[in-house]
Each structure stands twice: as structure tokens, then as C-alpha cells.
């Protein structure tokens, strides 16, 4: 057990010293397994673990969904989404902010990156909001918070990684993410509406657009909506597995982009390379995380924690809250993917032993780590936004984010109190 604790401390130290996470995990795992068993076992587990991961059909979902996102991102979807959302919501109080939130949810769901969403939408939506008199705080907070929404809306790469680590069904995780993801969007929109009503000066009303304009605004987003509906619908109806859904999604995205003249050979080369580079970076941390989970298992740390927790009488929701507090605190200083890779293998046996559903836990954990993206002191989305909009003080953004953080905490509480929010659609689909 003590080797397990030392291993976690060593991984954290090496990572903070800027050793790439995958290499920190591999180094510590090799040394740890060599100490517990012997060097020969450690060296034989290295290629075995890597080939299991790299020769996994289920994991091929990663590059194909990333390719789909990269292709759709290049078709100008962020501006189209914003224009379309504005045609529908612009006339409501806080309408531009609401439209930005919808566009952020859509764009982050497709591109899979909170940072890319914050950076892109700061160029697409921020100037419009400011020119219509929206306050700096609300405009920037909308973008920073909106970027976190897509992580739960399928396809979510982080849920694929969670599924591989905990051997949960990836299709079920995708379906389980739909309602909490959309709930996040609705609650954020409610939050914006409340802010606008309580303080009308921060968010003026726009003009109402007629239905002709609204329908024509959908021209730029129909293909995105079609791919999204096909993936969710196909997974829900069990027409195809997540990997097949990824193949279909990437294939249609490439076809649509090519037919609409938005996919030159140069762009194709760029998106393929970008996809491959991102995928390889993800695979390399996954190699480390899978070997590390073997070390955690051999060290008896997970069993030790289970015994300690049972002896202390901590169980049920109290235990979940304790674990989430650890994730929330770590989230202030670490990337959500890194936290999930290191700590999920440690806590998942505990969660299973307590009779909780691992699919539900995955959704709750992802929400908790994403909250950290907008909380001080490190809130990465805020700093990405700051890089794109250097004139806006960080304190203004964090102040603007406060109502959104409170909304997120409320959503987390709802998810813990009513696990059905995440699980009913899974049950309905027969998962």
C-alpha cells in the first residue's frame, strides 16, 4: 500500500516538474511494479499494456471523433452556430449572451476542447456582445463558462478515456452525458436570463427576427445538427457502436466539407495531421495510465483505501462528496484529463464496492473537474480568454463567473441527489 501512495506522490511531483504526464506515469509504474514484483514482470507488462491499448478497436473512436471535430471546426461552424442561435434568441433579454452560450455548447461538443471554444468564441461572439452594450463581466464569463459545456455532450473524448480506464460501456457513457450536458446549457441560460432581468443594463435586448430569417440561418448548421442527431440517435437505438458512430461521423463530416467546397487538399492535410498529433498525445498518456492502474492494483492501495474508508464509517453520498472535493481541489491546479487518468483507477474500485454506478460516477467526475476550469486561482478557460482579450482584467472575468460557478455546483448537487438525470436515458436505451 505504501508503494501505491509513494507512486501517486511521485507522479504528481514528476508531472509538476514538467515531465510529460504519460512519461511520469510510465516511469513510476515501471519502478513501482519492479519493486513490488520484479524487473522482468515490469518490462513484460510494458509492451503488453501498450499493445492492448493500441490494438483496441474500441479506442479507435478517439482519432475518428477528433477528426470529425477538426473537420467541422474548419467549416466555419462557430460563426454559423452563433448567427443561428442569435436569430432564435436575440430578442430575449440577454439574447446575445444566450446565443453565445448555445454556440459555445455546440462548438465545444464538436471540437471537444474547452480551451479552443473559449479562444474561438472570444473572437466570434465577444465583439458583438460588447458592441451591443453587454458588460465585460457577463460577456467574458458567458464564453469561459460556455466552453465547459461540450465535455459531456457526445462525442466526449474524456468519457472514452474514463470508459477505457473503468471498463465501462462507452456507448452508455455517451448516452448518460446527454441530459446532464443539456441540463448544464439550460441552467446556464437560466442564469444569464436572471442576471439580465436583475441588472438590465448589463445585457440589453435585441431585435426580434422573423421566421424566414430564422429558418435561413439554419442553412449553415443543418449538417452539424444532422451529424449530432445521427450519432446520438444511432447510439441510443444501438444501430452502431461508438467506434462505428465515430467512423460515420468523421466520414459524413469529410463528405459535407468536401461537397461544400470547404475542404481543399491543404486543409485535409492539416486536419489529418492535427488529428494524428492530438491522438498520439492522448494515446501516450493512456499507455501510462493503464500501466499505472496495474501498479495501483498490485500495490493494494485501492483495497487499503476501501478498508480505511469502511473502518471510518464513511459511505454513500458522504463518500462521493469527499471524493468530489478531492477532484475539485486538484482541478484548481491540474488538467481534468490528468486528474481522471491518475485518480479514477484509484477511486473506481471504491465506488463499485459501495454499489454506485460507474457510468453515473463518470458523469459526476467530469462535471466536477470541469468546474475547476472556471474557478480561481488557475481556471484555465479564464486564462485562455485573457490571452485572446488582453484588455479584460482577470478579476472581472472571475467576478462575472461567480453565478455560473454557483449554477454548476447546483447541477452537481442535482446529479448526486438524482442519479436518474444521467441514467434514465441509458436505462431507456436498454443499456
Amino acid at each position, binding site marked *: 500500500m505504501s508503494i501505491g501512495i509513494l507512486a501517486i506522490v511521485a507522479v504528481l511531483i514528476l*508531472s*509538476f*516538474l*514538467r*515531465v*510529460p*504526464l*504519460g*512519461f511520469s506515469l510510465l*516511469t513510476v509504474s*515501471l519502478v513501482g511494479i519492479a519493486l513490488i514484483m520484479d524487473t522482468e514482470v515490469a*518490462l513484460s507488462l*510494458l*509492451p503488453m499494456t*501498450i*499493445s492492448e491499448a*493500441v*490494438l*483496441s*478497436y474500441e479506442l*479507435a473512436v478517439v*482519432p*475518428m471523433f477528433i*477528426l470529425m471535430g477538426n473537420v467541422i*471546426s*474548419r467549416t466555419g461552424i*462557430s460563426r454559423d452556430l452563433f448567427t443561428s442561435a442569435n436569430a432564435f434568441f436575440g430578442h430575449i433579454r440577454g439574447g446575445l449572451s444566450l446565443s453565445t452560450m448555445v454556440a459555445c455548447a455546440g462548438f465545444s461538443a464538436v471540437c471537444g476542447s474547452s480551451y*479552443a471554444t473559449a479562444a*474561438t468564441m472570444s*473572437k466570434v461572439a465577444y465583439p458583438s456582445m460588447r458592441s451591443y452594450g453587454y458588460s465585460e463581466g457577463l460577456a467574458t464569463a458567458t464564453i469561459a463558462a460556455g466552453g465547459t459545456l461540450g465535455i459531456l455532450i457526445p462525442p466526449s473524448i474524456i468519457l472514452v478515456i474514463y470508459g477505457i480506464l473503468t471498463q465501462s460501456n462507452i456507448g452508455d457513457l455517451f448516452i448518460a452525458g446527454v441530459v446532464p450536458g443539456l441540463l448544464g446549457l439550460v441552467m446556464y441560460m437560466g442564469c444569464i436570463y436572471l442576471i439580465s432581468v436583475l441588472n438590465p443594463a448589463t445585457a440589453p435586448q435585441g431585435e426580434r427576427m422573423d421566421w424566414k430569417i430564422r429558418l435561413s440561418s439554419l442553412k449553415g448548421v443543418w449538417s452539424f445538427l444532422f451529424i449530432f442527431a445521427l450519432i446520438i440517435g444511432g447510439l441510443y437505438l444501438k*444501430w*452502431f457502436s461508438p*467506434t*462505428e458512430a*465515430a*467512423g*460515420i461521423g*468523421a*466520414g*459524413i463530416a469529410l463528405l459535407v466539407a468536401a461537397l461544400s467546397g470547404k475542404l481543399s487538399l491543404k486543409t485535409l*492535410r*492539416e*486536419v*489529418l*495531421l*492535427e*488529428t*494524428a*498529433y492530438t*491522438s*498520439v*498525445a*492522448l*494515446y*501516450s498518456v493512456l499507455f501510462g495510465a493503464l500501466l499505472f492502474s496495474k501498479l495501483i492494483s498490485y500495490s493494494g492501495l485501492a483495497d487499503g483505501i476501501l478498508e480505511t474508508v469502511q473502518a471510518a464509517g464513511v459511505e454513500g453520498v458522504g463518500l462521493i462528496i469527499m471524493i468530489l472535493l478531492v477532484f475539485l481541489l486538484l482541478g484548481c*491546479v*491540474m*488538467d481534468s484529463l*490528468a486528474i481522471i487518468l491518475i485518480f479514477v483507477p484509484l477511486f473506481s474500485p471504491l465506488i463499485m464496492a459501495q454499489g454506485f454506478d460507474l457510468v453515473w460516477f463518470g458523469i459526476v467526475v467530469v462535471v466536477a473537474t470541469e468546474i475547476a476550469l472556471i474557478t480561481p486561482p*488557475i481556471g484555465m478557460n479564464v486564462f485562455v480568454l485573457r490571452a485572446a482579450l488582453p484588455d479584460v482584467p482577470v478579476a472581472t472575468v472571475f467576478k462575472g463567473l461567480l453565478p455560473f460557478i454557483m449554477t454548476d455546483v447546483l447541477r452537481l448537487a442535482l446529479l448526486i441527489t438524482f442519479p436518474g438525470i444521467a441514467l434514465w436515458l441509458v436505462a431507456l436505451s436498454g443499456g
Partner: protein
Amino acid sequence: MAKRLFHLLKTLLEYLLMICLLVMVTINFADVTGRHLFNHPIYGIHDLTEHLMALVVFCGLPLVTMAGMHLTVDLLDRFLQSPSMRWLQHVIAVLMAVILGLIGWTFLQSSLEAGAIADVSNELRLPRGPLYLFMAISALLSALGLLYQHFLVNEKLITPPDHGDAL
């Protein structure tokens, strides 16, 4: 000479991984549409996808390693990237090269073993030995490339791909 060889290898790996990725998407798209619309799936799609995925990852490993695109925690960057901490960057480069070297060495052993026992994939019976050998060579190339770049050239020879205009 070394630089020319390096650029030749880089171009070769880039084209190979782009082709593998595109083929992987195409056959998966064709498999699902073929199965649902024409009741005619592609036989051995799992094997093909797995092998193509392994090729993509191990074609990309030397490129991603040298481009410095592995996931890192950059919280202490301001302090750790200062000239006085250059020694730490040397240690990290050596540590990464050792791990990559171990991956290469152990896959070389796996390749020999797979050849000896005629290890093949489940559906198409594709031999695993050559694939493991490719993975070993890629890991060893990554280690050598990293050391060459860090200690001899002292500048990044590969820049991360352009993220393009997402607007």
C-alpha cells in the same frame, strides 16, 4: 546529411499516418453504411482498424515527441523554463529517451516472440511480428530523435501542426 535524412523520414511518417488515418475512417464509414444499407459489412474490419490505429500512433510517436506535444502540467512553467533550470530539461529529455528506449527494446523482444510462435490477428490472421517490429523501430527513433534534437541541434525540428482558422 543528418538533417536531410531527418526531413525525409519526417515526410515519410507524415504521409504514412495521414494515409492510415484516412483509410481507417473510410473503411469504418463503408462498413457501417454497407452493413445497414446493403447488408454487406467489411470482413475483418476490427483487425484492419486495430492495425491501422497502431500504425497511426507509432508513425506519430517520433513526430509528437520531437514537437514537444506530449501532455504536460505547465503550472510552474515560469519558474521551470528559466535558463537556470536548463539542467532539469536535460534530465527530462534523458528520462523520456530511456522510457522510449525501453519501449523499443521490449517491443523488439515481442516481435521476435511473435515471429517464433506465429502470432496472428483473430479475423484476418495478420502477423503481429512485423507490426511489433515497426512499433519498436518507431520508439527507438523517437528516443534518438529526441536526444539529437535536445543535445545536438538545440532547437525544435518539428513544429506542432497549425490549428487553422476555426472561425
